[in-house]
């Protein structure tokens, strides 16, 4: 009996230790601000070169994980400029969860890969709910981060690959099965294409990247993509968990292709296909993406800047496969202290200095005309 008790208590202790280790691990992982807490300018230099007010207080946001790297960097830089006066937190839980937390009043702003929906889903109209949360004032969608979608592939000896939306749609829905398919060969007359089967990797979790990629395929693919754009993948292939899983799978599997955020493709040294939207092949760069964004039409009224992206018939040198992440904010009605920090932070975020840093992180900067609109909207927040 005593032996048994001794042993069992040891097991329990160890297991408890295991649980503790897991807890502390997750705790480390989920604190977005721990890395940003250090460094920066001396406190007291409140009015600085960038013309920031640097109010003190706390601001919290939640939502899209697509912009997580960008906004975390921005928070760190803002804190450095302001000497850590304000505490800004961003929790990348996903667009849907972020919007929900926003209209339930749990966070001060949301990050989302799509603008607030104005039609009812499940009896919930996101825009109306958000208006309610802002005490009757409309919520605005402010485009802040442009995340290009890369079509990354892993084929030996294929340095340059040109694809168009129609071919991509056919690869992704399983119509084109091998790399040396005539449709691919026609776009790449000089390339040596293998006869191997194409392995498509897709995001097994629901994601804004999937939604925006399928939007692009649907509207630019000449009818090759039949399904409605959705967060859950409806094409063919093998599902992997999150962007990291898809990137890892593509990097380790020969003759594979996937759609993925630019930053992940860059970090994993994956080759990226060039897009031919009718005016010749276009490489994925900050400028080519900004060019495509500048063709977008502003759908929102007043200072709401929700965009209608143009996916097909884009001008020469534009790369239209992209997703825009909006910061969703109250035009009015947030607590005054939070409003002050929010305005100040977004002023910094939309500044040329800040946007200039985005390409290094795998995002494209806002085109200048849209940038000035965003700046005007930020200034109009009350």
């Amino acid at each position: 009996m005593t032996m048994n008790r001794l042993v069992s208590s040891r097991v329990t202790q160890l297991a408890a230790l295991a649980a503790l280790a897991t807890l502390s691990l997750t705790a480390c992982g989920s604190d977005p601000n721990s890395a940003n807490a250090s460094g920066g300018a001396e406190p007291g230099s409140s009015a600085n070169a960038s013309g920031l007010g640097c109010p003190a207080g706390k601001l919290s946001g939640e939502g899209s994980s697509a912009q997580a790297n960008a906004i975390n960097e921005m928070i760190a830089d803002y804190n450095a400029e302001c000497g850590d006066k304000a505490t800004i937190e961003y929790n990348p839980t996903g667009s849907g969860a972020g919007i929900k937390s926003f209209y339930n009043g749990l966070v001060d702003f949301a990050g989302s890969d799509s603008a607030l929906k104005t039609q009812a889903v499940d009896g919930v109209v996101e825009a109306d709910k958000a208006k309610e949360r802002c005490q009757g004032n409309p919520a605005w969608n402010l485009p802040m981060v442009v995340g290009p979608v890369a079509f990354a592939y892993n084929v030996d000896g294929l340095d340059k690959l040109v694809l168009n939306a129609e071919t991509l749609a056919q690869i992704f829905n399983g119509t084109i099965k091998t790399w040396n398919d005539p449709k691919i060969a026609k776009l790449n007359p000089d390339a040596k294409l293998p006869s191997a089967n194409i392995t498509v990797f897709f995001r097994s979790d629901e994601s804004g990247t999937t939604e925006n990629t399928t939007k692009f395929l649907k509207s630019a693919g000449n009818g090759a993509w039949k399904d409605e754009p959705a967060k859950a993948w409806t094409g063919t292939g093998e599902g992997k968990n999150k962007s990291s899983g898809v990137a890892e799978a593509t990097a380790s599997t020969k003759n594979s292709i996937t759609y993925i955020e630019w930053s992940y493709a860059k970090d994993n040294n994956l080759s990226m296909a060039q897009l031919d939207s009718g005016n010749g092949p276009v490489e994925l760069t900050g400028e080519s993406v900004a060019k495509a964004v500048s063709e977008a039409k502003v759908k929102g009224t007043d200072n709401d800047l929700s965009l209608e992206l143009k996916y097909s018939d884009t001008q020469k040198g534009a790369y239209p496969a992209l997703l825009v992440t909006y910061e969703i904010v109250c035009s009015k009605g947030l607590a005054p202290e939070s409003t002050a920090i929010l305005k100040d932070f977004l002023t910094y975020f939309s500044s040329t200095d800040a946007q200039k840093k985005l390409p290094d992180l795998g995002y494209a900067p806002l085109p200048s005309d849209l940038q000035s609109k965003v700046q005007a909207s930020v200034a109009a927040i009350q």
Partner: protein
Amino acid sequence: MTDTDATEKVQQEHTAADDPSLSPVVDHTEAHLHSPVPTVLHHEHHEPAPAPTPARPAERAPRGVKLAKISRTGDRVFRSLATTSGLAIVLLVLFVGFFLLALALPSLRADQDNFLTSRTWTVAGNELRFGIAGLFWTTVLSSILAMAMAVPVALGVALCLTQYLHKRVSGPVSFVVDLLAAVPSIIFGLWGLTVLGPFLAPAAAWLISTIGWIPLFSKSVDPKGSVFVASVVLAIMILPIVIAISRDVFTQTPRDHIEAALALGATRWEVIRTAVLPHGRSGVVSASMLGLGRALGETIAVMIILTTPPQGAPFTPSIFAGGETFASKIANNAAEFDSPSKTGAYIAAGLVLFVVTFAVNAIARIVAERGAKS
């Protein structure tokens, strides 16, 4: 989460094993008969005494000696505390069941497909079509496969620790085994994805080429993210639980039985076969079932390893195919629960997992009980 769950289960099992009235897992009565333990006798003397009666001759004190007053306050306080804890855990489980049912029902009503037999999962639009057949298959297949791999090894380790190794060696080895339980499941998952998957790929290819005509081993697309790899990782994860409990059960084999067997000329293997294994059978069964329960609910490791087949892919029973388990599906999509009907669909899947785990534990109880009686 799963780590703490497992801890609780192990803990429960141990407390149960200590108390003969709670658990039939270990044959205590037999043990008591064969080993004269004075504490137990003492204990039994205490039980029938209804109240302190001063008239009993045995308790009359000699002159000049003062007897301490027997206080029952501690008894009462502890009893009520223990009862409250017991009630609280029952209420908690009932509450979880009720919560799952309440959130799942609206979505289940709106489901256009048969919830139990459909393999589609379309929960985004206004029309819900979802079923758990695919999830159920992958969950049960991976868990049973994991158990089939883990239990024989665990039995060997437990027997080695209790019957063969010297105490000085078995102590540290037990410690190492327990340490395995301290590895977070995400580490197992990453290891499975980056190391074990590629390592097992040739073995999988060989199996496919030799016995691929059996549907269970038929060829699939991605050998690295298969149910097979996931269940090997699961097997490693449930090893410490099964080993720890089997070891405890085997150490309780009555000394007399072992000595009797030895006296009759039995070899070490015959001792194990005739005395140790029969004594520990029901304990090993419930240990395996606990491990199975853990494997059924494991989330992160499985989610990282398994490749997900696309919507509408034809069903394949192969262990070299990918898939999604209840837990991995829910965890994978938890970030995008943006409408109550979608959330409800996932919670309905969670409800099935709850029921399956409940059934597994119930079976474990029944088997253990039967083992104790025979």
